[in-house]
């Protein structure tokens, strides 16, 4: 048995799947980096991104069934929505706020992902509200017997909102097929974890609802996959919700409007680089002989092409028509020609 077989075997994944996951992490990173370049070049006014969070997102979402399951993402969920089926072009259409942006038709700020084609529910800005939407989706799945699992994501700062308490309690009472992923990057904008949370671990709260609370190193893609697979299995078989806390690092400022050097030291920022999931996963797969230099080169080329394509495609697409601004306040507000986006 080779090292290769070992790495995948432990979590039941073949080499192709491992490479697909690596590709996702790398793709998400590449798109994300491009966003910042576009922002600094004055092409897009706002960026909020998931650099440092991609490993956890790809690992976790790989355990779901796209097309069946549901996701309610948050603004750092680029890797999550990509893994669930969204295309780089669709991400960039949101970034440029174009008429054909599937998330919102250019109505929302970038980072507010959604897509009916992927069972990705539209997300808003007020944090933590989405846990209740995920609980409701899971309730409907349970009542309708669809076998679906609903997964939702948020930061550790957001996990302190009242809605999280109400959502976990309800999901636990009814053993709903729901998974809450808290991506703990240690900050809510500038507020460090010690001022947001009484304990370092959000997962410690799960016991209060009688549900599993699992902590995973977010730079450990396969570890994240493993805990998610267990949570999905539990949810799908009536075992109820799981709280997964992924310890991640925020490699960028909070958003393009933030200056993180004001509240994080240079040393801290440098040290945090060591928690980047991308080089870690790359090395893991390389050591296992799965990611050869040749494959890596091929992937890099493919990804660069995808990002270029997504960028130029999105940039070339039309802005929304001002006449469309009154559409879809209510179901009956449609373009005179019928049809429309949804």
């Amino acid at each position, binding site marked *: 048995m080779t090292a290769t077989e070992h790495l995948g075997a432990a979590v039941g994944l073949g080499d192709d799947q491992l490479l697909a996951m690596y590709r996702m992490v790398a793709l998400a990173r590449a798109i994300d980096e491009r966003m910042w370049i576009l922002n600094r070049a004055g092409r897009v006014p706002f960026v909020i991104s998931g650099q440092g969070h991609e490993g956890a997102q790809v690992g976790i979402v790989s355990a779901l069934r796209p097309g069946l399951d549901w996701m309610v993402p948050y603004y750092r969920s680029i890797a999550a929505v990509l893994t669930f089926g969204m295309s780089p072009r669709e991400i960039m259409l949101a970034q440029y706020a174009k008429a054909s942006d599937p998330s919102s038709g250019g109505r929302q700020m970038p980072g507010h992902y959604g897509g009916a084609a992927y069972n990705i529910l539209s997300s*808003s800005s007020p944090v933590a509200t989405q846990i*209740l939407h995920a609980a409701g989706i899971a309730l*409907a799945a349970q*009542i309708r017997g669809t076998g679906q699992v609903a997964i939702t994501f948020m930061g550790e700062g957001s996990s302190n909102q009242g809605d999280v308490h109400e*959502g976990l309690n*309800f999901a636990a009472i009814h053993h709903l097929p729901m998974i809450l992923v808290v991506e703990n990057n240690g900050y809510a904008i500038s507020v460090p974890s010690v001022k947001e949370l009484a304990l370092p671990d959000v997962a410690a709260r799960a016991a209060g609802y009688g549900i599993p609370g699992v902590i995973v190193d977010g730079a450990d893609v396969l570890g994240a996959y493993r805990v998610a697979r267990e949570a999905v299995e539990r949810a799908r078989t009536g075992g109820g919700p799981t709280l997964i806390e992924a310890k991640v690092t925020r490699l960028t400022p909070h958003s393009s409007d933030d200056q993180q050097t004001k509240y994080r030291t240079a040393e801290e920022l440098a040290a945090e680089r060591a928690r980047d999931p991308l080089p870690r996963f790359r090395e893991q797969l390389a050591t296992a002989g799965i990611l050869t230099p040749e494959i890596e080169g091929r992937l890099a080329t493919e990804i660069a092409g995808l990002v270029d394509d997504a960028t130029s495609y999105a940039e070339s697409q039309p802005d929304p028509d001002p006449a469309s601004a009154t559409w879809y306040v209510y179901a009956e507000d449609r373009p005179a020609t019928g049809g429309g986006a*949804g």
Partner: protein
Amino acid sequence: MAIRTFLEAIRDTLGEEMRRDPSIIVLGEDVGVKGGVFLVTDGLHAEFGETRVIDTPLTESMIVGTSIGAAANGLRPVAEIQFADFIFPAFNQIVSEAARMRYRSNNAFGCPITIRAPYGGGVHGALYHSQSVEAFFTHVPGLKVIVPSTPYDAKGLLRSAIRDDDPVLFFEHKKMYRSVRGDVPDGEYTVPIGRAAVTRVGTRVTVVAYGLMAHYALEAAERVAEEGISVEVVDLRTLRPLDRETLLGSVRKTGKCLVVYEDNRFGGYGAEIAAIVAEEAFDYLDGPVMRVAGPDVPGVPYNHVLEDWFMVNPEKIAEGIRTLAAY
């Protein structure tokens, strides 16, 4: 045709709609075995079971938030907020989420939920069991707001609300539950959302009202009729979207408009009615648009002496009509 109380009309509708459409669920505090604190959902739990009639924890944000999610995944939730006064913990979910789901997703997702809540004073409920909260929601694009005043309308409008593809707030005046009765046809019928009703035809003054005040307006009209003042009463029934045609048609005819609402006067729903009339019927007005509304104190006080002081009643409305008619 049968005579039903306001409450029975609502309860009947819930049962009939649930029988028709298995995707409808009812959820809220005490809606199950107890049948709700006013017994509006009485019997539903026995008939439809606890999967479709869900006693939730005491958490309004959760009631609305999970309704939004459930609606996205194929159900049609009818949520009950035990008292309109307790809708505020769910304010963020209603205003930021339910109201904007369709718009923000560019029609990718809708939010077909109905939120029922008993509102209103005059029942010794004090500051927190008497409120009129409609103005907080009628201001919000994306929401529809209904305040019926008769069993007939309650049934026809609740059916429309449940079948509507957007979030609807349905406010039921708790004082009317058992005190108001009326004819309700046997078959399935709907009253369209967005249509007011002229409940009394008259010539000199238009009184615009809704909910309990629609009844008090009729009583007041009766009183002043004896004094020779002919009053037309418009019962708005749906507050958002507003039926401008019926409203403006009546005022253009009478030339005088009195807006009546139970809620605090300043910034209440009636302010928008007055503003619309003042702008769009200006040339027809031969008197100021006047308002009779609740005083600007933070709630209906409990002691009956103070409660009586607070509440709008037929006599206060009649006084308003007299003043306006004499203008």
